[in-house]
């Protein structure tokens, strides 16, 4: 007997209705899956589950960058057991969702235009006017309900119930897609013979539906996905969907409204935008007409929508429908508007704005759940059963004071579904988020959706955020549906011309390049320092060089040395705590300039342009994300710093692999140029700083040869040097190699030459009229080329290279100006918006 059958044998549903079992017998639509599952040993199952985890992670869930959201972010998991729906069951659900979406579309249009339903008494006015999702500035505008989503749960009678509606920025679609991608890789044999309805068709409908919102029909629309940015808990999904659908991922600052039209700021100038797929709450989209304190939108957006110059999904104003106050009125509205019975039942709901209903809710408070009609400001749901007497009394007072703002709802008795936990199947409750997209007069529904289940047993509260355990949702089908590849089915390019790079992307790429270089040089320098430090056979000169290198490390990483040293203003002595200090410079999460932080900054910028990286590049990035966490725990690091050599080697290899992939795998268009400019300008500054900080002020003639050797080592030039000049360590030769050699990729001159080459390809480059940053670079390059190598290599009796020192300082300053001026010209450093001061309000004259 196989392990998996044992698996099901020990499964006890603990509910009157279970998704899989009737009594002890599995339902027919589960058999194909269960049969395949039964061929797997428990070891294989374990392996597959960890393969799922690995793939989810690799596909880019770099969540813990944002340290505040660390905990919830890490909770994203995918169960190997899917949620399987029988075909006929699904057909009923699908019909019900379509009907509900159509009904909501009619209600939404009416509320923002004629308000007949209100005047005819079909909807009580408070449900509209007291709901903060009713946006007065949107009154009179078209309100197409392009996307509709709802959360469904199965009750113990086996029926699906609507638990809540999502109409403004429904999230989860990308997670559903991601889950399916991973499952179809990991469980490939389970998908043979097409027993599961594909998602491709839905995403095809989705694209067409979004494209139809474009005000410029007949031309290929420019579509952007408006995200709140990397701080958003569903940012991963925004990046994932944007890249899957071929939309440009933008934030509010990237858009600007001119003459009632919306434009994207790109490095080439302003590009018109036709459709915005928004993931920003509607009231945050325009600080002029909507929430004045919002930084996530763009002023004038409401006006652009009003004039019909841009399509918006979903419409500004659609959050009105996320309104449990409407629920009790839906059956009658459905009759009136569609002439049909409402098909999918909602959980029984009483709106407290009606006297009788309010009394019912107040009387049954301990049994019900109570929520507000809008969910702005994260208003919570109250579960009567979980409240103390005192809390119940308080809730009662709240409801009585503003009854029309509250509803009471029955608590659904959930069916159970199995979840694989710790090698056993455990019964859990599940929610299914389903998605529909407008398709002419009808809606197209994703076959399946995103299933989530509670992690704790018996818990009906499934976190709204995308945490908890998720499941792929399978709608089983008997006939093989024709395989339809998304890419073949859809038109090739609903996207901006490939040459277009948004200013924000250019900005992020530049910083990925900068931080990657900086992390590499800091890692090399740390490796060198640790080697020197742990070398037992050292003399006075070695100590001096070591101290100098440590100082250099502080300078280039901009980490602040321990206060004591700084206060005394002397060269650091090798104090007994240096082991701890070195560890802190590597692993400290909060210390500015630590290697960990440099990597975090690099990954943060890389994550912000996630769609750009190839899978291989992404894998390397993910490995670096884990690096610090993995090695910080190594045993006995404190007593044996030598153990750090291997991890540092690995990290340097990863950084080199990333650089190599960038060079070999990326299309070398404008996007790549900004990445490479970030690298080159950072490397130029780092080389200059290294020489200037460690050699030019060494202040000890005897230490010069050793320092030259170390400099050549840390800058990856020692092999080349030995090949060219043998063992003789000479400052003149070393500087020639490090600074002047235009063929040496590790030399200063090489970087400057490459930068100059990039500039010629930038948009709006004109050789006759140089920009500030072009002048900075030209001056840096000329200063270097006009300087005399021999005189730079000469030092005074004290051992200081004065001319070298001043030249390098000058070049560093110019390169820093270069970066600043380049970023001012091309990146989206918008000035901060401010509200016009309020004036006329505070004055009046009385006649006393």
């Amino acid at each position, binding site marked *: 007997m196989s392990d998996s059958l044992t698996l099901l044998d020990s499964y006890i549903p603990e509910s009157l209705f279970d998704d899989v079992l009737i009594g002890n017998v599995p339902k027919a639509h589960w058999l194909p899956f269960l049969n395949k599952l039964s061929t797997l040993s428990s070891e294989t199952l374990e392996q597959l589950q960890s393969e799922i985890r690995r793939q989810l992670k690799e596909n880019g869930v770099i969540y813990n960058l944002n340290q505040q959201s660390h905990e919830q972010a890490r909770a994203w998991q995918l169960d190997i057991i899917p949620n399987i729906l029988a075909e006929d069951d699904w057909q009923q659900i699908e019909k019900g969702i379509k009907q509900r979406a159509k009904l909501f579309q009619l209600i939404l249009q009416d509320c923002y235009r004629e308000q007949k339903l209100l005047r005819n008494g079909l909807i009580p006015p408070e449900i509209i006017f007291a709901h903060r999702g009713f946006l007065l500035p949107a009154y009179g505008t078209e309100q197409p309900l392009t996307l509709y989503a709802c959360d469904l749960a199965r009750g113990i009678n086996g029926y699906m119930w609507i638990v809540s509606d999502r109409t403004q920025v429904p999230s989860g679609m990308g997670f559903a897609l991601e889950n399916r991608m991973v499952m179809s890789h990991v469980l490939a044999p389970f998908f043979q013979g097409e027993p599961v309805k594909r998602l491709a068709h839905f995403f095809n409908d989705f694209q067409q539906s979004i494209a139809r919102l474009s005000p410029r029909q007949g031309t290929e629309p420019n579509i952007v996905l408006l995200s709140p940015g990397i701080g958003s808990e569903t940012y991963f999904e925004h990046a994932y969907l944007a890249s899957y659908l071929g939309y440009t991922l933008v934030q509010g600052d990237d858009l600007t409204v*001119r003459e009632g039209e919306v434009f994207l700021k790109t490095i080439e100038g302003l590009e018109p935008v036709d459709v915005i797929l928004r993931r920003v709450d509607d009231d945050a989209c325009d600080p002029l007409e909507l929430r004045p304190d919002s930084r996530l939108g763009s002023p004038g957006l409401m006006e652009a929508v009003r004039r019909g110059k841009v399509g918006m999904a979903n419409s500004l104003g659609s959050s009105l429908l996320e309104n449990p106050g409407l629920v009790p009125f839906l059956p009658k509205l459905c009759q009136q508007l569609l002439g049909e019975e409402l098909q999918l039942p909602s959980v029984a709901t009483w709106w407290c704005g009606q006297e009788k209903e309010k009394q019912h809710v107040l009387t049954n408070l301990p049994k019900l759940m109570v929520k507000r009609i809008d969910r702005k400001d994260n208003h919570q749901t109250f579960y009567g059963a979980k409240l103390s007497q005192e809390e119940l009394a308080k809730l009662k007072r709240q409801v009585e004071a503003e009854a029309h703002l509250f509803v009471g709802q029955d608590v659904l008795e959930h069916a159970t579904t199995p979840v694989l936990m710790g090698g056993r199947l455990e019964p859990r409750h599940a929610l299914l988020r389903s998605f529909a997209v407008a398709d002419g007069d009808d809606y197209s529904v994703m076959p399946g959706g995103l299933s989530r289940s509670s992690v704790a047993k018996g818990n009906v509260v499934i976190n709204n955020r995308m945490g908890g355990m998720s499941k792929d949702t399978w709608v089983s089908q008997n006939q093989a549906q024709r395989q339809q590849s998304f890419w073949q089915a859809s038109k090739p390019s609903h996207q901006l011309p490939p040459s277009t790079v948004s200013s924000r992307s250019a900005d992020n790429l530049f910083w990925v390049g900068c931080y990657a270089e900086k992390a590499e040089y800091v890692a090399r320098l740390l490796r060198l320092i640790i080697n020197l430090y742990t070398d037992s056979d050292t003399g006075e000169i070695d100590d001096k060089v070591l101290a100098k290198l440590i100082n250099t490390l502080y300078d280039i990483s901009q980490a602040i040395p321990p206060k004591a040293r700084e206060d005394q203003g002397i060269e650091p002595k090798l104090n007994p705590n240096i082991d701890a200090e070195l560890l802190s410079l590597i692993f400290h999460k909060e210390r500015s300039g630590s290697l960990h932080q440099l990597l975090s900054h690099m990954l943060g910028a890389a994550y912000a342009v996630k769609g750009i990286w190839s899978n291989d590049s992404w894998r390397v990035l993910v490995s670096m994300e884990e690096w610090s966490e993995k090695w910080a725990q190594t045993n006995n690091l404190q007593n044996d710093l030598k153990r750090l050599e291997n991890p540092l080697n690995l990290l340097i290899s990863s950084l080199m692999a990333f650089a190599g992939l960038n060079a070999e795998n990326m299309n070398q268009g404008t996007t790549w140029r900004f990445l490479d400019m970030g690298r080159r300008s950072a490397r130029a500054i780092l080389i200059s700083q290294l020489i200037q900080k460690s050699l030019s002020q060494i202040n000890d003639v005897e230490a010069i040869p050793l320092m030259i050797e170390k400099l050549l080592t840390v800058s990856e030039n020692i092999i080349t040097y030995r090949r060219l000049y043998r063992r003789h360590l000479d400052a003149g030769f070393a500087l020639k190699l490090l600074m002047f050699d235009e063929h040496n990729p590790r030399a200063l001159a090489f970087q400057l030459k490459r930068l100059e080459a990039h500039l010629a390809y930038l948009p709006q480059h004109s050789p006759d009229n140089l920009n500030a940053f072009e002048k900075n670079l030209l001056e840096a390059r000329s200063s270097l080329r006009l300087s005399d190598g021999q005189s730079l290599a000469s030092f005074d009796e004290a051992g200081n290279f004065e001319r070298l020192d001043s030249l390098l300082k000058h070049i560093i300053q110019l390169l820093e100006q270069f970066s600043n001026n380049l970023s001012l010209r091309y990146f989206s450093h918008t000035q901060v918006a401010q509200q016009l001061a309020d004036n006329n309000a505070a004055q*009046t004259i009385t006649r006393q």
Partner: protein
Amino acid sequence: MIETNFKITHLNRYEYSDGVSLAYNEVKLTPKDFSHPLLEQSCLSHELLISPKPQDQRQRQDFFGNQVSYFNISSHYQKMSVTSNSVVKRKLKVKSSEVKNYLHTRLAPLSWQTARQNPPEFSPFHLASSFVPLLSELKAYAQISFDKQPLAFNALNDLMQRIHHDFRFKPGATHINTPLSEIAKTMTGVCQDYSHFMISCVRSMGLACRYVSGYLETLPPPGQPKLQGVDASHAWVSVYLPSFGWLDFDPTNNLIPLDQHITIAWGRDYADVSPLKGVIYGGGSHKLHVAVDMERKKA
């Protein structure tokens, strides 16, 4: 019948320490047309002069029927001025000396309980709004007038008188974001505080009440010539009385606005009628100069 024509000039001038690179604005400065049994107002002409010249400007009506001008300036500037020039006719249908009698007679049968029955479209003026929460202490305050006076008009008149009496007018004591609960404690402020206070009272009693923004003509002290630019933008409230319409009350001055008030816009509270709002990029710090001038013309 008394007809008065006013020529109104309302200037707003902003001066910035740094240049402004981009500005989006919304202006509500066009006086309204309306009429009810007591008086009638019509805007005979209106122009909006904006400097620097906007690259984009558009006029529309908002949810409440107010005129809104949207404009966008994308040229660099350090000074911006918005001047609204209007000529407005205000027609009083009853002699001023007879107004009180007229209102008493006309509104006498209407109890305040009856005045609460309104069509669903008036819901926004019954509910709490962003600047006007419905506070239990204000309900208690209003209750005194409404217990004493069964007739709607008398109760409202009484309430207005009490607010006028209990409030201390003090410019600078409050700002636009001072919460009503705070104002209810200090009973100090300016016209919009008086108005928000009264609106909350009236809505607590179940009547529909709205916020009105407009101008108030200032009369010079006896024997002195009128100075220019001393008139002011002002705010008061309006209550819906079935079979009559919206009747205005000015709690700051304890009077029924007649021929010295000009209505620009109305809404649930200040947020709906803010005369000039905007989002600008750049600008640094700023200085603001506002002047309103109302000149009577022979009709």
